[in-house]
């Protein structure tokens, strides 16, 4: 662990960088370039996880770290500070277009890879070869990035398979997720739930390649619809002086899995959660699971494909509903409201017959498609 002296020195250097940054950029209303030193403070509410100062080193084409102070707040999971710091460093190294090599300057614990990051690397089973030289090699960076991203084993295997087949680099998949283009469950839906995830993730289809473009758009919209439910279930509203506030780091203890065969999401929770977007009041209690078949369908598509979806739901029920602890849902956008009343009644009747709950998201197909196009566009502009 860094000595008190090293931490105090680091803080002084950080302050110096903050002042220089203020003088050179904030006061002049200018944006820094990748090759300028940029200070970052990573915190949640009043808890600081990490203080970092980085720049892209043009001469060596690597990410240079001049300050890397990491805290390990006891109220969070172990090594959370190192996770935050390393996640940022890897994403920044990728974003700057360098080799992915990360180099720590003499100001960081005397020029070594910070001890907390070494601990995290050991936890992830990655052996760092140049700890005391202060370097993380591109290969080590790749393994750390993949470990840190938190993909399920199935998704990780698929990412490795795509890398082996030369379809997409694992760094790009991790960056798309860590950089906020796709959430982890959304990325998993795309990776596991489609035949050519690399095309969607890299936004390889132009609108004039109509068939391929529509396929990517559909996959993305469905993943986003599933993501909307994830966020709704994960969100916890806290009250502060009678006002409802949302906490950025407090989420429901929810596990989210994905069944690629049915493009369905499986949720389990340790606490009681109100199940949203259904007509009745139901809770997801501890020991129960909800299986949600996600279908981004417009009103006319619902009418056209409902019977096929119902077939899928029957197979899904056969696979999952062994007892009363599993609830099955059919999630569609609010375009469903435009379906003629008589058809809606028929659909409801058939779903009731199978014991499936109809879940209507507040999102419409138009908004899902708009968001999907935005994400595809962002993904296309992400480093290849």
């Amino acid at each position, binding site marked *: 662990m860094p000595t008190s002296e090293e931490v105090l020195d680091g803080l002084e250097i950080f302050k110096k960088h903050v002042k220089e940054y203020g003088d050179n950029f904030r006061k002049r209303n200018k944006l820094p*370039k*990748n090759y300028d030193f940029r200070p970052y403070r990573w915190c949640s509410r009043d808890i600081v996880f990490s203080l970092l100062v980085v720049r*892209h*080193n*043009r*001469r*060596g*084409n*690597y990410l240079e770290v001049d300050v890397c102070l990491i805290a390990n707040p006891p109220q969070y999971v172990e090594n959370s500070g190192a996770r935050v710091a390393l996640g940022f460093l890897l994403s920044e190294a*990728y*974003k*700057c*277009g*360098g*080799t992915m*090599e990360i*180099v720590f300057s003499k100001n960081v614990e005397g020029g070594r890879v910070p001890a907390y990051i070494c601990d995290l690397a050991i936890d992830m089973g990655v052996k760092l*070869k*140049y700890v005391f*030289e202060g*370097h993380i090699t*591109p*290969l*080590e960076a790749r393994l750390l990035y993949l470990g840190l991203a938190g993909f399920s*084993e199935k998704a990780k*295997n*698929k990412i*490795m*398979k795509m*890398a*082996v087949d030369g379809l997409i*680099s694992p760094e790009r998949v991790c960056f798309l997720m860590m950089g906020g283009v796709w959430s982890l469950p959304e990325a998993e839906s795309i990776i*596991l*739930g*489609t*035949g050519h995830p690399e*095309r969607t993730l890299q936004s390889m289809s132009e*609108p*004039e*390649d*109509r*068939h*391929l473009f*529509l*396929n990517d758009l*559909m*996959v993305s919209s469905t993943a986003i619809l599933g993501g909307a439910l994830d966020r709704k279930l994960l969100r916890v509203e806290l009250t502060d002086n009678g006002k409802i506030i949302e906490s950025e780091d407090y989420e429901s203890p929810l596990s989210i899995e994905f069944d*690629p*065969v*049915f*493009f369905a999401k499986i949720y389990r929770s340790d606490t009681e959660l109100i199940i949203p977007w259904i007509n009745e009041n139901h809770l997801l209690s501890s020991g129960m699971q909800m299986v949600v078949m996600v279908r981004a369908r417009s009103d006319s*598509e619902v009418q*056209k*494909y409902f019977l096929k979806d119902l077939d*899928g739901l029957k*197979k899904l029920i056969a696979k999952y509903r062994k007892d009363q602890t599993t609830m099955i849902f059919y999630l569609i956008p609010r375009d469903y409201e435009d379906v003629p009343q008589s058809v809606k009644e028929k659909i409801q009747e058939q779903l009731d017959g199978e014991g499936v709950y109809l879940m209507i998201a507040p999102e419409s197909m138009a908004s899902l498609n708009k968001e999907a196009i935005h994400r595809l566009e962002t993904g296309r*502009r*992400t*480093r*290849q």
Partner: protein
Amino acid sequence: MMKTTIWLVAIPDEACVMERLDLRTLMNRALKIEQRLKKKVDEEAEQRRYQILCDRIEYLGNQISISETIESVSLGTDYLDLLLRIQKQYPEECLSARLLANFCPAHLLEKQIEAFESLTKRAGIGEQKEVRDKTGFYRRAIKSGCHVLELPEFISDEEEAGDLVAGDLHQKFLSLPMNDQITTSNNANAFIALRNQIKAVIAQVEKGIPAAVNVSDIAHNVITEILHEFVYKSGKPMYLPVVYGDGSKARPFPIHCLKPRKDNAIKALSVYPLLNVGMMSGRHHELDDLIKFYFYRNQEISTGKTAAETDETAYRKAKEIFPVIHREGIFRIAFYQTGFQPVVMGFYRALTEELIKREKLPPQLELIPQYYFGDYYENGKTWA
């Protein structure tokens, strides 16, 4: 797993009008946009218009096919994979044959299906059921004078993806060529640093390790001089991978591909007047009096796209201009550079390719870069 099926629908001419929308008009407009898209002018706006038209064509197609007795056939869930195979093998032909378009007016059916047959035969999939189904359907549509729409249907086919053998896969993944070394020196000046970077990338590419030169944030005179060195250096001709600081990946740059011209050949050119050409308009107005014209118009190049896209635009534009210059005779150009790395890369890539084309001919084009250093301009090495 989510999959796309394509339905072929034959629409008779008399059934083309519905809800005040005329399918023929929509198809004609979309065809015109396809032509404009080939010119790459205002691409994003054209793509948006194309998307709206395609949405309408699909909407109308669906409405007509519900209400009329329309012939249709499904091409199954593997058809898209076949299209991807063809697109991968013959990207240009695939585009010109409109293989991925969702509509085909009656007057184009013959031409389009012949192109499809020829491409599928070349790709070795001419006997596949989907190909035969499509060919047969188009032939029948030609006889009956119908228009053909290719409408997508998104279904979940409840297919389990093949299990990935993890052990074997991990081994393959870990043995992917990847740099596991560290950078040892970073004290070199910008020229030496870029030279070292290019040498390192060449060494890695030769070993099959993915690597690319990052030229963002490097002064344009350094880029030009070092590129000159590698273009005229003896060695195995190769394409150097290029990335930018925003992560975008550009077209690779040819190196080790030209021999320096003999002094007397260059001397023979010196009788011709030197033409002062600026690189880009609207950037250094003090140049306006000095130069005859600008090679690029700022408006055409600075479009707010990624660096790689800007590089590509500059490259394509230069590729259009050089043959014109070639036809017009001998030119000696003093090229006043105005910065902006992607444009420098695009320009010199096109120039290098032009000089490769003219290598066997006596020199007819001489270009001397001019670099601004405060109060004066300095000559760079001559490209001829």
